[in-house]
């Protein structure tokens, strides 16, 4: 009986032996399959969230994303991503007033020196808190703003 039980044990050991080479040889295929699963997407806190609206202001194209919750479930803390892009080079200074909720009232004013990266954010409403990140990303300039949920 013990010998019989040992057979599947040895078989499993052989399978374990095979798993290592298969894992690495077929890594790309398995990774592609894994990537199709529903949870395999970067959380909006890191990806910046969904695009809410894209519009043209002067020569800049401004993409305002939807605010995303910055902590787990029901938090008051939110983050907002705004992307500034322009064909060719970005201007030396980006000086824009953003109405992120599109209620026709400006919510904050941002001034970015694209050469030094210096960013000044002036909240115009109480739910805008501070600038979380400001950086050139590829050809665009991205800022993330801390918000309080309305």
């Amino acid at each position, binding site marked *: 009986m013990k010998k019989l039980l*040992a057979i599947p*044990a040895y078989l499993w050991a052989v399978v374990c032996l095979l798993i*290592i080479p298969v894992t*690495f040889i077929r890594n790309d295929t398995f990774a592609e399959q894994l990537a199709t699963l529903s*949870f395999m*997407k970067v959380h909006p806190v890191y990806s910046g969230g969904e695009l809410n609206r894209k519009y043209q202001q002067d020569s800049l194209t401004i993409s305002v994303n939807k605010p995303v919750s910055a902590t787990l479930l029901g938090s008051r803390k939110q983050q907002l991503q705004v992307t500034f892009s322009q064909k060719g080079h970005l201007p030396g200074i980006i000086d824009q007033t953003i109405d992120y909720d599109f209620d026709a009232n400006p919510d904050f004013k941002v001034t970015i020196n694209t050469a030094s990266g210096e960013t000044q954010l002036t909240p115009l409403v109480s739910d805008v808190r501070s600038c979380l990140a400001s950086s050139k*990303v590829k050809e665009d300039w991205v800022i993330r703003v801390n918000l309080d949920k309305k």
Partner: protein
Amino acid sequence: MKKPRVYATEGSIWKSILLTFPMILLILLFTAGGPPDLSTPEKSIAFLTTFFFLITLFFLILYTGKTDRYRAIGFVTLALFFALTFIVNLIKARGSMTFSQENLLACEIPFCHIVTTMIIIPAVITNSIIFPGSIIGGFASIASMLVIVIGVSLALGRGFCSWGCFYGGWDDGTSRLAHKPRIKKVNPVFRWFSFAVLLVIALISAMTLNPAYCDWLCPFKTVTEFEKVTSFSILMKTIVFLSLFVALVIILPVLTGKRFQCTTLCPMGALLSLTNKINAFDVRINKENCSSCEKCVKACPTLSLTAEDMTAGRPSITCMKCGKCIDACTKSAIHYHIKGTPNNKNYSWARNLFLYPAFLLLVVFLGGTMQSGIILLINLIKTGNLIY
């Protein structure tokens, strides 16, 4: 007293060569990925050195019957070459070891296996991954690394920590620096500390949607990449991870001879201990042969063996299957074992069936890394510049 020969290959050149042969093919496959590239002298030297280094290690493991002695050489080499190549590649790509806001915003941070411990709960709750990396494509993508974590967990469990982890070699190496450790007795209660880290880190990461261990604790940021200090908070984080590196990866391993970081801090090790039950291999103590000399207890680098564990006939779930206790035992009372098979039989079969996947894991990680590292070192000698 001379240790009795236990394994069929021990002391037998022909049997050792015969069993090394399949590994030669696997090493060729995984270090060269096809016909070896011998187009330049540097590449030829790098390939041949790596190839013969790996073959020699495997042959010696079989021929001498000593597992840990030769495993450790490969494992420490992996850690050193990994750090070297990773840092040089970072400096080439980014100009420094630090990552910037741009890398974070563009989700370009390489995913490391340890992050797995922090993404599970948020993935269940939020149906997404809380890490600023790329899901697929690019260097160390999330999907690709998760496939490796799943595969290795299934095949070797916590054996990964001694055969494949590209960080573990650091404290494995430093724990061997002192011939005799200054602190001889370490309370085995500390082997549970990494589980507490796992518990707290998993909850905090879920709560804050932030991989807290990477952000605050990971000592190996010292030898890979870290956030550029631009605020007080980042300065605090830098002080914390540098202190942990000095304390847990250098000072305490040297003083105690134990792998302190892996034992007490690494949440991945704790997670792999929990999945350790799935794979086919473990380590067992043959109580009939055991003389209770406790040499194995002293040798165990992860505090996984105590007198109680010896009575139970197996190390605790924290065992990394490094083989140090097996090497230390003069009575051949400890051995690799295949779960579900008789405890006191077929030592050679069990050992060989374990050694192939375990050593292959080392080959996979070390093969490419070592070749790249050797090319870098050759260029350093030739040009005086590491980053050419």
